[in-house]
Protein backbone atom coordinates (compact mmCIF):
# COMPACT_ATOMS: atom_id res chain seq x y z
CA UNK A 1 0.00 0.00 0.00
CA UNK A 2 1.13 3.52 -0.79
CA UNK A 3 0.32 6.17 1.82
CA UNK A 4 0.54 9.84 0.84
CA UNK A 5 0.57 12.37 3.65
CA UNK A 6 -1.00 15.72 2.79
CA UNK A 7 -1.31 18.77 5.03
CA UNK A 8 -4.49 20.54 3.95
CA UNK A 9 -4.78 24.28 4.42
CA UNK A 10 -8.23 24.05 6.01
CA UNK A 11 -10.96 21.66 7.07
CA UNK A 12 -11.44 18.48 5.07
CA UNK A 13 -14.65 16.84 3.89
CA UNK A 14 -13.26 13.32 4.05
CA UNK A 15 -16.18 11.66 2.30
CA UNK A 16 -16.14 14.17 -0.56
CA UNK A 17 -12.37 13.89 -0.96
CA UNK A 18 -12.68 10.11 -1.04
CA UNK A 19 -15.40 10.34 -3.70
CA UNK A 20 -13.36 12.77 -5.80
CA UNK A 21 -10.28 10.55 -5.64
CA UNK A 22 -12.22 7.42 -6.56
CA UNK A 23 -13.96 9.22 -9.42
CA UNK A 24 -10.65 10.43 -10.81
CA UNK A 25 -8.42 7.42 -10.17
CA UNK A 26 -10.76 4.43 -9.79
CA UNK A 27 -9.86 1.28 -7.94
CA UNK A 28 -6.28 2.35 -7.26
CA UNK A 29 -7.76 4.40 -4.39
CA UNK A 30 -8.29 2.49 -1.13
CA UNK A 31 -9.47 5.48 0.86
CA UNK A 32 -8.37 8.43 2.94
CA UNK A 33 -7.78 8.92 6.65
CA UNK A 34 -7.72 12.05 8.78
CA UNK A 35 -5.96 12.69 12.08
CA UNK A 36 -4.41 15.68 13.80
CA UNK A 37 -5.28 18.00 10.93
CA UNK A 38 -3.44 15.86 8.39
CA UNK A 39 -4.77 13.62 5.65
CA UNK A 40 -3.40 10.32 4.45
CA UNK A 41 -4.35 9.03 1.03
CA UNK A 42 -4.20 5.26 0.76
CA UNK A 43 -3.42 3.94 -2.71
CA UNK A 44 -2.77 0.43 -3.92
CA UNK A 45 0.91 -0.48 -3.99
CA UNK A 46 0.87 -0.65 -7.79
CA UNK A 47 -0.35 2.94 -8.13
CA UNK A 48 1.65 4.79 -10.77
CA UNK A 49 3.64 7.94 -9.92
CA UNK A 50 1.17 9.87 -12.08
CA UNK A 51 -1.75 8.56 -10.06
CA UNK A 52 0.01 9.47 -6.82
CA UNK A 53 0.73 12.97 -8.10
CA UNK A 54 -2.87 13.39 -9.24
CA UNK A 55 -4.15 12.21 -5.87
CA UNK A 56 -1.92 14.66 -4.04
CA UNK A 57 -3.00 17.47 -6.33
CA UNK A 58 -6.70 16.68 -5.78
CA UNK A 59 -6.18 16.67 -2.02
CA UNK A 60 -4.36 19.99 -2.04
CA UNK A 61 -7.09 21.58 -4.19
CA UNK A 62 -9.84 19.95 -2.14
CA UNK A 63 -12.86 22.17 -1.43
CA UNK A 64 -14.60 21.00 1.75
CA UNK A 65 -17.80 22.77 0.66
CA UNK A 66 -18.09 20.50 -2.40
CA UNK A 67 -20.27 17.55 -1.45
CA UNK A 68 -19.94 13.90 -2.34
CA UNK A 69 -22.80 12.38 -4.40
CA UNK A 70 -24.22 10.81 -1.23
CA UNK A 71 -23.95 14.06 0.72
CA UNK A 72 -25.54 15.96 -2.16
CA UNK A 73 -28.40 13.45 -2.36
CA UNK A 74 -28.91 13.76 1.40
CA UNK A 75 -28.96 17.55 1.19
CA UNK A 76 -31.42 17.40 -1.74
CA UNK A 77 -33.67 15.07 0.23
CA UNK A 78 -33.49 17.37 3.24
CA UNK A 79 -34.31 20.43 1.11
CA UNK A 80 -37.26 18.63 -0.51
CA UNK A 81 -38.58 17.64 2.89
CA UNK A 82 -38.27 21.19 4.19
CA UNK A 83 -40.10 22.50 1.12
CA UNK A 84 -42.84 19.90 1.53
CA UNK A 85 -43.26 20.91 5.16
CA UNK A 86 -43.62 24.54 4.19
CA UNK A 87 -46.08 23.65 1.42
CA UNK A 88 -48.18 21.57 3.81
CA UNK A 89 -49.11 24.78 5.61
CA UNK A 90 -51.27 24.80 8.73
CA UNK A 91 -53.04 22.09 10.65
CA UNK A 92 -55.62 19.90 8.96
CA UNK A 93 -59.11 20.37 10.40
CA UNK A 94 -61.12 17.10 10.35
CA UNK A 95 -64.32 19.01 11.05
CA UNK A 96 -63.98 20.70 7.69
CA UNK A 97 -65.04 17.42 6.06
CA UNK A 98 -68.74 16.59 5.88
CA UNK A 99 -68.20 12.99 4.79
CA UNK A 100 -67.67 10.92 7.97
CA UNK A 101 -65.15 8.67 6.20
CA UNK A 102 -63.08 11.66 5.10
CA UNK A 103 -63.34 13.16 8.60
CA UNK A 104 -62.06 9.89 10.12
CA UNK A 105 -59.23 9.82 7.62
CA UNK A 106 -58.30 13.44 8.40
CA UNK A 107 -58.29 12.64 12.12
CA UNK A 108 -55.86 9.81 11.41
CA UNK A 109 -53.63 12.14 9.38
CA UNK A 110 -53.63 14.72 12.19
CA UNK A 111 -52.76 12.04 14.72
CA UNK A 112 -49.89 10.71 12.56
CA UNK A 113 -48.56 14.24 12.03
CA UNK A 114 -48.53 14.81 15.81
CA UNK A 115 -46.76 11.50 16.41
CA UNK A 116 -44.08 12.41 13.84
CA UNK A 117 -43.63 15.86 15.38
CA UNK A 118 -43.16 14.27 18.80
CA UNK A 119 -40.60 11.83 17.40
CA UNK A 120 -38.72 14.66 15.69
CA UNK A 121 -38.71 16.66 18.90
CA UNK A 122 -37.30 13.65 20.75
CA UNK A 123 -34.54 13.37 18.13
CA UNK A 124 -33.73 17.05 18.56
CA UNK A 125 -34.79 18.02 15.04
CA UNK A 126 -36.21 21.46 14.47
Amino acid at each position, binding site marked *: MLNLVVEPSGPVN*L*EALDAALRAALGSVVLGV*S*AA*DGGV*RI*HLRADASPDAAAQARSLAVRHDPAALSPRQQAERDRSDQLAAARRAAGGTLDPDAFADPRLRALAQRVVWLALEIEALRARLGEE
Partner: protein
Amino acid sequence: MPAVWTQPITWEVDQLVTEGQLNEQVRDNLEWLKNPPRAAAALAANIATTSTAFVDAPGLALTLTTAGGALVVGFTGVAGNAAGATVVFDLVVDGVSQGGLDGVVGTNVGVVPLAFVWLVEGLAAGAHTVKLQWKVSSGTGTLYGGGTAFLRFKPQLWAREV
Protein backbone atom coordinates in the same frame (compact mmCIF):
# COMPACT_ATOMS: atom_id res chain seq x y z
CA MET B 1 16.54 1.60 34.58
CA PRO B 2 14.02 -1.08 33.62
CA ALA B 3 14.35 -4.43 35.30
CA VAL B 4 15.89 -7.29 33.33
CA TRP B 5 14.47 -10.77 33.34
CA THR B 6 17.00 -13.62 33.87
CA GLN B 7 16.14 -17.26 33.39
CA PRO B 8 15.78 -18.73 36.93
CA ILE B 9 18.59 -20.98 38.14
CA THR B 10 17.87 -24.58 39.05
CA TRP B 11 19.49 -24.72 42.49
CA GLU B 12 21.48 -27.70 43.75
CA VAL B 13 22.10 -29.03 47.26
CA ASP B 14 24.99 -27.27 48.99
CA GLN B 15 25.29 -24.71 46.20
CA LEU B 16 26.78 -21.46 47.44
CA VAL B 17 24.35 -18.61 46.86
CA THR B 18 26.12 -15.38 46.08
CA GLU B 19 24.96 -11.81 46.57
CA GLY B 20 24.95 -11.35 42.81
CA GLN B 21 22.74 -14.36 42.26
CA LEU B 22 20.29 -13.26 44.93
CA ASN B 23 20.07 -9.81 43.43
CA GLU B 24 19.66 -11.18 39.95
CA GLN B 25 17.40 -14.13 40.69
CA VAL B 26 15.24 -12.68 43.43
CA ARG B 27 15.37 -8.88 43.39
CA ASP B 28 15.69 -8.26 39.64
CA ASN B 29 13.29 -10.98 38.56
CA LEU B 30 10.70 -9.86 41.09
CA GLU B 31 11.13 -6.28 39.91
CA TRP B 32 10.64 -7.46 36.34
CA LEU B 33 7.51 -9.36 37.30
CA LYS B 34 6.21 -6.28 39.08
CA ASN B 35 7.13 -4.01 36.19
CA PRO B 36 7.19 -6.01 32.93
CA PRO B 37 7.65 -4.38 29.52
CA ARG B 38 4.53 -2.46 28.62
CA ALA B 39 3.39 0.44 26.45
CA ALA B 40 0.23 2.43 25.86
CA ALA B 41 -1.08 5.05 23.46
CA ALA B 42 -4.25 7.11 23.64
CA LEU B 43 -5.97 9.56 21.32
CA ALA B 44 -6.97 13.10 22.21
CA ALA B 45 -8.81 13.85 18.97
CA ASN B 46 -11.10 12.10 16.51
CA ILE B 47 -9.60 10.12 13.67
CA ALA B 48 -11.49 9.06 10.56
CA THR B 49 -11.02 6.87 7.53
CA THR B 50 -12.74 5.88 4.31
CA SER B 51 -10.21 3.17 3.52
CA THR B 52 -11.67 -0.14 2.40
CA ALA B 53 -8.37 -1.91 3.09
CA PHE B 54 -6.77 -2.09 6.51
CA VAL B 55 -4.62 0.97 7.25
CA ASP B 56 -2.87 2.15 10.40
CA ALA B 57 -5.06 3.99 12.87
CA PRO B 58 -2.98 7.14 13.41
CA GLY B 59 -1.58 7.53 16.90
CA LEU B 60 -2.34 3.97 17.97
CA ALA B 61 0.96 2.13 17.53
CA LEU B 62 3.36 0.81 20.17
CA THR B 63 6.88 -0.53 20.33
CA LEU B 64 8.20 -2.55 23.23
CA THR B 65 11.08 -4.92 23.92
CA THR B 66 10.13 -8.20 25.51
CA ALA B 67 11.99 -11.01 27.24
CA GLY B 68 10.31 -13.74 25.19
CA GLY B 69 6.97 -14.03 26.94
CA ALA B 70 3.50 -13.63 25.53
CA LEU B 71 1.90 -10.22 25.04
CA VAL B 72 -1.53 -9.20 26.22
CA VAL B 73 -2.87 -6.38 24.10
CA GLY B 74 -5.95 -4.37 24.89
CA PHE B 75 -7.99 -1.76 23.08
CA THR B 76 -11.01 0.28 24.03
CA GLY B 77 -12.76 3.02 22.13
CA VAL B 78 -16.04 4.30 20.74
CA ALA B 79 -16.37 4.12 16.98
CA GLY B 80 -18.99 4.18 14.30
CA ASN B 81 -20.05 4.52 10.70
CA ALA B 82 -23.42 5.08 9.10
CA ALA B 83 -25.84 2.29 10.00
CA GLY B 84 -25.36 -0.63 7.65
CA ALA B 85 -21.75 0.23 6.87
CA THR B 86 -19.02 -1.41 8.90
CA VAL B 87 -15.97 -0.06 10.64
CA VAL B 88 -13.66 -2.83 11.82
CA PHE B 89 -10.38 -2.94 13.70
CA ASP B 90 -7.50 -5.37 13.46
CA LEU B 91 -4.51 -5.93 15.71
CA VAL B 92 -1.20 -6.20 13.88
CA VAL B 93 1.90 -7.45 15.72
CA ASP B 94 5.23 -7.25 13.89
CA GLY B 95 3.31 -6.85 10.65
CA VAL B 96 1.18 -9.95 11.22
CA SER B 97 -2.60 -9.53 11.27
CA GLN B 98 -4.13 -11.18 14.30
CA GLY B 99 -7.72 -11.07 13.15
CA GLY B 100 -7.44 -11.83 9.45
CA LEU B 101 -9.90 -10.75 6.79
CA ASP B 102 -12.20 -8.53 8.85
CA GLY B 103 -10.09 -7.93 11.92
CA VAL B 104 -10.71 -8.52 15.59
CA VAL B 105 -13.69 -6.30 16.40
CA GLY B 106 -16.11 -3.96 14.63
CA THR B 107 -19.65 -2.71 14.15
CA ASN B 108 -22.25 -2.11 11.47
CA VAL B 109 -24.95 -0.55 13.64
CA GLY B 110 -23.73 3.01 14.10
CA VAL B 111 -21.70 4.39 17.00
CA VAL B 112 -20.87 1.79 19.65
CA PRO B 113 -18.21 1.07 22.26
CA LEU B 114 -15.65 -1.43 21.00
CA ALA B 115 -12.98 -3.29 22.94
CA PHE B 116 -10.79 -6.37 22.87
CA VAL B 117 -8.17 -8.12 24.94
CA TRP B 118 -5.93 -10.30 22.81
CA LEU B 119 -3.20 -12.79 23.73
CA VAL B 120 -0.21 -12.94 21.37
CA GLU B 121 1.98 -15.99 21.92
CA GLY B 122 5.12 -17.29 20.27
CA LEU B 123 7.03 -14.02 20.19
CA ALA B 124 10.81 -14.14 20.48
CA ALA B 125 12.63 -11.88 22.92
CA GLY B 126 13.35 -8.52 21.36
CA ALA B 127 11.65 -5.43 19.96
CA HIS B 128 8.07 -5.72 18.74
CA THR B 129 5.61 -3.38 17.09
CA VAL B 130 1.94 -3.43 17.97
CA LYS B 131 -0.49 -1.50 15.76
CA LEU B 132 -4.19 -0.96 15.50
CA GLN B 133 -5.46 -0.96 11.93
CA TRP B 134 -8.93 -0.25 10.63
CA LYS B 135 -11.10 -0.13 7.54
CA VAL B 136 -14.70 0.45 6.45
CA SER B 137 -17.00 -1.35 4.05
CA SER B 138 -18.15 2.06 2.76
CA GLY B 139 -18.73 5.56 4.10
CA THR B 140 -16.58 7.15 6.78
CA GLY B 141 -15.52 5.39 9.96
CA THR B 142 -14.75 7.54 12.98
CA LEU B 143 -12.95 6.67 16.20
CA TYR B 144 -14.06 9.26 18.71
CA GLY B 145 -11.25 10.83 20.68
CA GLY B 146 -12.43 14.26 21.70
CA GLY B 147 -13.66 16.13 18.65
CA THR B 148 -17.40 15.64 18.98
CA ALA B 149 -19.63 16.84 21.81
CA PHE B 150 -20.89 13.98 24.00
CA LEU B 151 -18.49 11.64 22.20
CA ARG B 152 -15.33 12.98 23.84
CA PHE B 153 -13.91 9.59 24.71
CA LYS B 154 -10.32 8.47 24.97
CA PRO B 155 -9.44 5.44 22.87
CA GLN B 156 -6.48 3.51 24.23
CA LEU B 157 -4.25 0.74 22.88
CA TRP B 158 -1.96 -0.98 25.36
CA ALA B 159 0.31 -4.01 25.52
CA ARG B 160 2.03 -5.80 28.36
CA GLU B 161 4.29 -8.83 28.50
CA VAL B 162 3.03 -11.62 30.71
